[in-house]
């Protein structure tokens, strides 16, 4: 079956469908990871987005379920060069195409993904659609209604859409009780904490400081998540209080941005974001540059971090964007990248150790 990709700038591409049928509008982004497509698709931060993979051969090792970072695919569409119909790996349960179909996600293959990437790089991320409902790319472009929908699209209520409604606790016997804010958390954040002996309660995004105090916590973990960070005004307001509860706070990605916003900094949309597993980040304290996994379209604006409240601890070695902030007077640190990896390098997993050490320190101090 034919499938088309339509971009807001009036360009369209024809390929083959390998997922669900239909039409879906979203923000078209590209990811440069060469492995880890199952993790990418199930990362809730991709809510509202249509992912283009720059690596051309996708689905080589199939999908196994174990590597999913959440219960379902959150991305709105998937664009690849060549999808693999005969995957090979001992854990493979199904093909990438079947996985997309199971989740009702449209997949387009047989297109020049490098070309699409170069368009996005030059013009910045843009809205677009994937569809199986048109005879040709030209026909899709000619449909004014579709084009209007594309132009009007904006990711909205993203966090609310992906966050849990209920609290749920994992590893009851764990030594440190951590509240994991679900802004769209990846499972490996949970696993990373559990592996380090934490008892983790996943809490809804809107949870307040008052609600948290009832839990008897040792620390707070602010997860990654989708959308424009500044949209989450209520959460930002809550965080002003939450970060001052005296508990160690560790934020990742959206958690990092929201904490910064709660402390008066600004966020901005990057031209085409950082989505991949090869981003170099310099950690000033360690005088080291680490390779990190990243997925974000927004960043904290350099220069808006109030030096009285916080200092930038990490920057991107390629473009100098803010990658980490350490707060003053409160036990709180946040990073823009993903130390939990999945997919991507595990080189910054030491941050989880630091977080656990902070909680241990606090406990030892008699709290």
């Amino acid at each position, binding site marked *: 079956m034919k499938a088309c990709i339509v971009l807001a700038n009036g360009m369209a591409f024809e390929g083959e469908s390998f997922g669900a049928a239909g039409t879906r509008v979203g923000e078209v982004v590209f990811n440069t990871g060469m492995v880890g497509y*199952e993790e990418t698709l199930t990362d809730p931060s991709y809510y509202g987005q249509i992912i283009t993979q720059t690596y051309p051969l996708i689905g080589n090792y199939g999908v196994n379920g174990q590597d999913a970072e959440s219960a379902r695919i959150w991305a709105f569409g998937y664009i690849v060069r060549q999808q693999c119909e005969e995957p090979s790996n001992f854990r493979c349960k199904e093909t990438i195409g079947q996985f997309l179909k199971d989740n009702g996600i449209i997949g387009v293959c047989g297109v020049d993904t*490098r070309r699409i990437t170069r368009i996005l*790089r030059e013009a910045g991320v843009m809205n677009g659609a994937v569809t199986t409902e048109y005879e040709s790319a030209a026909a899709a472009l000619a449909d004014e209604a579709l084009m209007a929908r594309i132009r009007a699209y904006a990711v909205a209520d993203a966090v609310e859409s992906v966050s849990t409604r209920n609290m749920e606790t994992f590893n009851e016997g764990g030594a440190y009780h951590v509240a994991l804010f679900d802004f769209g958390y990846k499972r490996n954040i949970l696993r990373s904490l559990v592996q380090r002996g934490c008892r983790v309660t996943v809490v809804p995004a809107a949870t307040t400081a008052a609600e948290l105090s009832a839990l008897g916590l040792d620390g707070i973990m602010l997860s990654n998540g989708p959308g424009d960070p500044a949209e989450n005004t209520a959460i930002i307001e809550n965080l002003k209080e939450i970060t001052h509860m005296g508990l160690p706070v560790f934020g990742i990605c959206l958690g990092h941005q929201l904490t910064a916003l709660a402390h008066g900094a600004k966020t901005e949309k990057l031209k085409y974001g950082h989505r991949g597993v090869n981003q170099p980040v310099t950690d000033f304290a360690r005088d080291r540059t680490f390779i990190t996994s990243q997925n974000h379209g927004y960043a904290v604006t350099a220069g808006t971090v109030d030096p009285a409240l916080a200092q930038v601890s990490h920057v991107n070695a390629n473009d100098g964007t803010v990658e980490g902030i350490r707060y003053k007077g409160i036990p709180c640190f946040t990073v823009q990248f993903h130390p939990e990896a999945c997919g991507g390098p595990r080189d910054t997993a030491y941050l989880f150790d630091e977080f656990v050490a902070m909680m241990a320190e606090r406990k030892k101090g008699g709290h």
Partner: protein
Amino acid sequence: MPKDPSIKKVLVIGSGPIIIGQAAEFDYSGTQACRALKSEGIEVVLVNSNPATIMTDPDIADHVYVEPMTVEVLERVIEQEKPDSILPNLGGQMGLNLAMELYRSGYLEKAGVRLLGCKPDTIDRAEDRQLFKDTMEKLGQPCIPSKVVEHLEDAVAFAGQIGYPVIVRPAFTMGGTGGGICENEEQLREIGTNGLRLSPIHQVLIEKGIAGWKEIEYEVMRDGKGNVITVCNMENFDPVGVHTGDSIVVAPSQTLSDKEYQMLRTAALDIITELGIEGGCNCQFALKPDSFEYAVIEVNPRVSRSSALASKATGYPIAKVATKIAIGYSLDEIPNDVTGQTCACFEPALDYCVVKFPKWPFDKFVYAKKDLGTQMMATGEVMAIAPTFEHAMMKAVSSIELGLDCMSMPSVEALSDGEVVEKLSVCDADRSFVVYEALKRGVDYDTIYEKTKIDKWFLAKLHNLAKTELMLRWYGQHPETELPRALYVQAKRQGYMDKTILRFIGRDALPFPPLVAGFKMVDTCAAEFNAKTPYFYSSFDEENEAAQFIAAHKTDRRKVLVFGSGPIRIGQGIEFDYCSVHCTWVLKKYGCEAVIVNNNPETVSTDFDTGDRLYFDPLTPESVDHIIATEQPWACVVQFGGQTAIKLTKHLQEKGVKILGTGADAIDEAEDRERFDELLERCGIPRPKGLTVFTTEEALEAGKTLGYPVLLRPSYVLGGQNMIIAYNDADVKEYMAIITSHVDMDNPVLVDKYLMGTECEVDAICDGEDFLIPGMMEHIERAGIHSGDSISVYPPYNLKQKLQATIIDYTGRLARALNVVGLMNIQFVVYNNEVYIIEVNPRSSRTVPYISKVTGVPMVELAVRCMLGEKLRDMGYGTGLYPTGDYVAVKVPVFSFSKLHNVDTQLGPEMKSTGEVLGIARNFEDALLKGLIGAGYQMRKPTPGKCVVLTVKDSDKQELTDIAWAFKDMGYKLYGTAGTADHLAKNMIACSHVRKLSEERPNLRDLLESGLVDYVVSTSSKGRIPSLDSVQLRRKAVELSVPCLTAIDTARVLVRCLRSQHTLRDVELLDIAKIL
């Protein structure tokens, strides 16, 4: 961390002659290293015995020593040059081993020289088997059950414990030399003995066989701050058991999920961190296909063949970055030259698939065992880049120069279904083609996997190719049905060439216009950043980034395409890359835009900053057409890329593309036998009488007419491929049977009278009117031994003035008659004071780099200037024969016989050497000594009990007398086989009789194994066939590392050298950057 200011003068150790396992990749890495050092204002001293390298050019290093690579030479160079540091980890295993020896002896400390980039402790922990195991254990990295042993009995006992199969891996040998898989005790005894002997520290690892696991490699880098990155990971098509150098390799890995990928990546980074390497490192892992279980196979604490591949596959310049790290920079301080806007501390993201395919010498060594194992046998490799594995694989296959344009190999297609399935179990050089054939015939994945353990992902991809071939062939059987365009596009995107598609569908033309390729950029970042580097590969997509790039960088310079020489193989080595690179540089210098096309990842020519643009694509007519369509060049250059580029001439001519320099017609005139004869007649130049034949009958007739011995060879050859001397009818029959199975019989076989005279050679630069011969060479071995395998001496040491004048005269006549513009190489034989022409090649030759270096005449530069229209007389080097310099240069060939089984080591008209070294000195004796030692000859002096074995063919017996006497006089005891011993006895030289290998024991085998034999002189009129007694003797000598001389002339000069009083301690070491 900025550059360490105390580093001011650095000694770079090269890798010496090209041998199997250590090829051109170290010229690439060494050249990058030298240039990186010089760009930092550091003075560079280079030692490398290989004159065909770019790194030994005086403009790459400040001081260049083309000297034997031994500890004593290095010590003397250090005394002479007083460097403050040594950079040892970019010159392969050779450079590393030498640096370690210098360190261990305490010399470096005494001389106050430090090692950059690696610590001795690191090397030991990576290379010493036991220390390596201990290190891995400490890190919690799993190793394969293994034990280091120094005695065979311990090996046998351990194997008994862990069970067979076991693998033998000798310590400190390159390319796995001397190793192998043993299925039982008998094999272990044989391979183990050999491995112990070949290891310089008499140590081997006995390891549990884990055949069938996936083999995965990571190229990692670390700086002094501890920053670590992975440049690339790679997956071997062949499972563990086949040396990675002999395996098809893909980058990045394809069948690993993120969990497996990151598990091994983390392991690799932990290893490089624990070893404390500052620079590049290669980690090889075995991964069990059905679990997360893995084992570390090997760690190379240096830049390697794999890092050359990884560099070209990603665009990340590993050698350059490793050098910058070695002098103090950290990864985040080094810019990424490709993007120009990011730093070197990142991991390249590929948006294409890379396939590396090995080039084996089996098309040349027809009797060699083609079985692949732990010992590398490939002489070179090609790399292909494409959006899909299928397309990359097809590009690789058409680049490897086996005469294939798809995966269907005629000899495999000819097998029955049963034979194909049976052959799946044979792990040899043809296996990928056998697998393909099996898939084509419908053999299921399970059956193939069971026998080959090649991952089903690869099988599925090959199956895709097979399905397309079968579909296309269906249209061949149904000529009434039109080929659908969709199938054509699918085939093109999988890499099928138009020519191949037309062949399959059995038609002369396509029913629609053919697709034109577009080009994509290799940018290290999957298009995330706007890269500046003009490094392209073809694909059949709409967008053409190369065309966009050209449009955005318009110049008024004339644009020239330079075709490279493809994979390194016997007969076409690194020297052609030297020429191509120099041609590119000269074109740039003289106002042209130079664009390189090549497919060899081991070379300097495929460095993205060598030319103005680089196309990493096959050198086939169709591939070249696509590049020409995009580039619209003013002209092309074919004469520097060996036969690979020359082969394109006719096609380019037909397409109306301007060829710079000597025209297509002249090339044809030199190679077409009849036209060549007419030419010589016209010029009044004699040649050995010869005939052209197509069939065995004609060949036998020719033998009779000309009189034996005769020389047989196919027309259009390089490196004397498939060339023999036939002494009788049986030889002719044997040869014709082989040749008809290997060579396209559209081209005839040439039969020549064989004249056993002195061979001379000249390279000349011609401008269409005048010519310049920078230097004449005379060979030590008489005609009949391929010029590439002969010891060659500049200037001639024996040749009469009158004959030299004749040679100059003939050169001029030919240059003018052929209207050569550029380079030309002519081989002569002097027989009974008469000069005959053997061969004319109107192109650059193997000797160009070395003659350029010893004479100081920049041959490629002058040739290119001629090609651009300048005249020799205006260039300041004169015409005719260039004045002879003060130095004598002796080029000595180097062989890789220990890596190839069943190959007869006897030299003949077919080239066998893989590389060469140069000895350069003020006199012949010293130059010869340096050359022979550089080539690995050990100048053994007799000790009590030591002997020499002599067994020569009848025609050599007369000349053996003097040589035998000289050995005797030095104090050696002589042994000879019956005929030889009798002959010597008749000449009053005492020589004990020893029985041949095929005779009753004790015989020659026992004598050789006794360790008492210092030299063997073995010549025979028949060779090649492995079962022959003489061949077995020579093989035995190779296995035991006993120097074996197979030409009486070589034996004579060796004896001369042995008897001279000079040693490496007292010969003058020359900085060739200074003497010219």
